[in-house]
């Protein structure tokens, strides 16, 4: 972790030195080069050996910094565009239990507890249901409400209308903080 490469960037006027591993992170966030030896290409770009790059990726997988490695699908492009964010106002003492129960449901693709933002936003549990048709998503939601006895819990359904941007997290400090087009 000692190799530093002068990939200087400007962030609030402060130049940032990226070491080879941080640089690898930045490159990985943009995806693998689609060539026979992608790790080798990445290795050359950040001044490491191919084996070091693979070892580093495996370590990040073990540490769960990398949650998964593979094809990142844009569901909307495939027509899976009935995407409902369902928000619930669950009493605090029940929210973890309800969240865990909903997360077990196969139609729920994301589920988390968030801070309320009173007085504007009373909802503290969010879950996402992705589907092909809106009616089907609403039916699945009704089934969930019934199965988990949530009829009395205040909720709202927010279907997505348009994706202005959908891309992977860009956390690592990078040369210039701009985005690849979405």
């Amino acid at each position: 972790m000692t190799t530093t490469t002068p990939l200087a960037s400007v962030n609030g006027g402060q130049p940032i030195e990226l070491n080879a591993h941080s640089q690898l992170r930045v490159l990985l966030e943009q995806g693998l080069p689609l060539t026979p030896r992608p790790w080798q290409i990445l290795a050359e770009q950040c001044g490491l050996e191919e084996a070091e790059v693979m070892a580093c990726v495996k370590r990040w997988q073990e540490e769960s910094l990398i949650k998964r490695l593979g094809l990142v699908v844009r569901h909307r492009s495939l027509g899976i565009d009935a995407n409902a964010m369902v928000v619930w106002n669950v009493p605090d003492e029940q929210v973890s239990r309800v969240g865990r129960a909903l997360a077990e449901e196969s139609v729920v693709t994301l589920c988390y507890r968030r801070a309320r933002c009173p007085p504007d936003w009373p909802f503290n549990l969010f879950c996402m249901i992705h589907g092909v048709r809106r009616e089907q998503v609403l039916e699945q939601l009704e089934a969930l409400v019934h199965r988990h006895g949530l009829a009395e819990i205040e909720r709202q359904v927010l279907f997505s209308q348009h994706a202005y941007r959908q891309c992977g997290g860009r956390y690592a400090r990078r040369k210039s903080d701009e985005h690849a087009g979405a």
Partner: protein
Amino acid sequence: MHCHYHDLDSLDRRLIDCYQRDLPVCSRPFLAMAEHLNTTEEQVIKRLQRLQAMSVLSRVGPVFDHALAGASLLATVAVPDNQRDAFAELINQVPGVNHNYAREHYYNLWFVMTAADESSLAARLNQLETMLDRKILRLPMLESFHIDLAFKIPWSELEEV
């Protein structure tokens, strides 16, 4: 942005079904995938390039853990519907915005802001709030029950559309 489903043949679908996770970390990963799928490395690479060009894939690579990888926050703002596109464009121009959706609600723009750490995240949101001249609701995650967008693609349901 529209349904490319009918342009995908069985090899494309098998690639997606098998490799949303567990892409092999070996010197020739696409060769290993090709052997598993009974095709050639060249075909796998060609297919991935095509799927990426069609925007069916945003990329082939790792998905980093939000909490471990840096700071990120879901935020929302209510804007007039007839100016929604213009506001969305302003939001997209801020560094670190990686999702930005219009949703059917009074709070009609929803975005995820990311940054290397909490203080730069807060600074970016404050700046954006000033620029939009609208209150931004900040909805930090407190507990994660399930975050997995690598769900099985419902090919048969897509067939019916």
